[in-house]
């Protein structure tokens, strides 16, 4: 299911080329930027986006909500790598997505805008998820009738989330992230106490 979100986010990211005009490519409908060192486009005013400093984790994106170009540069890459390692371990052990750890690590630790962090987390999770999916699929652990209906349901939600992300303020996104973190914490605490809400 994480793969779906990644595909949608990436499809949305690539979607900005649809807005190509005579003067180049506008990023007015660039809903989900991904932390990247290259692959530029331009704003509606013709300013370059994301061309700066290839090889570094810095860039810029056009924020629909603010109507402005937002520049950023990721710092403390070691911290990001360490938290990602922890996120991967927790994800593998508990069967939960590591995004709830990676997004705060990117926004608070690496000083990346929350929209970039969300899109980057989706892409990371998607790629790591398909690596394990290929292993499980090849070994015959995939039950299509369990996977396909869930995947179809998630497509709608992921599409809404990817589009909504570009329209709402970073403050709102942070509150949504807080709510998700609280829910995950409560769920994990209940599991630890032996309370199963699914029964």
């Amino acid at each position: 299911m994480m793969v779906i979100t990644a595909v949608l986010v990436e499809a949305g990211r690539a979607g900005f080329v649809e807005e190509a005009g005579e003067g180049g490519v506008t990023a007015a409908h660039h809903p989900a930027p991904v932390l990247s060192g290259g692959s530029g486009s331009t704003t509606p005013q013709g300013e370059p986006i994301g061309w700066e400093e290839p090889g570094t984790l810095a860039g810029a994106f056009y924020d629909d909500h603010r109507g402005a170009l937002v520049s950023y540069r990721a710092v403390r890459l070691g911290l990001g790598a360490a938290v990602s390692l922890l996120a991967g371990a927790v994800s593998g052990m508990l069967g939960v997505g590591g995004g709830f750890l990676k997004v705060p690590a990117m926004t608070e630790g690496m000083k990346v805008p929350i929209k970039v962090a969300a899109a980057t987390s989706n892409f990371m999770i998607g790629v790591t998820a398909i690596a394990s999916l290929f292993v499980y699929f090849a070994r015959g652990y995939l039950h299509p009738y369990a996977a396909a209906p869930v995947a179809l349901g998630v497509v709608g939600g992921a599409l809404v989330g990817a589009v909504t992300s570009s329209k709402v303020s970073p403050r709102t996104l942070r509150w949504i992230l807080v709510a998700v973190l609280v829910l995950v914490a409560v769920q994990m605490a209940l599991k630890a106490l032996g309370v199963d809400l699914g029964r």
Partner: protein
Amino acid sequence: MDVDPLEMSAADQAEIHRVQRIVQVLLRSGLAAAVVLMAVGVTGKVITGVHAAPAVKLFALGDAPSWPDFCMALGVLVLAATPALRVLALVVLWSRERDWHFVGVACVVVMTLTLAILVGRG
């Protein structure tokens, strides 16, 4: 050596935009195809009756117990392959930008995915 994209020629930038457009078509087509395949498979499964069926293996899709199972498994495969192809496209895109740091990182990801398939095949 990295090249400042701001100094790229208009032809180079047009070429990069062309590759990005291809990536866009690839991602949207892959997602649409996966959704259609899975929807057809789920519908077929409901119509023909839901029975307990063995799991489907990646390298033996043809052995799926029924055509709905085959459609659903193929849909999942297309869905998984789409971002993998995106990573391959990134290798091409960053190579054209001569951004070798990111070409290296993307190649590591491609190798990891290849290794996952090989490990799964056993």
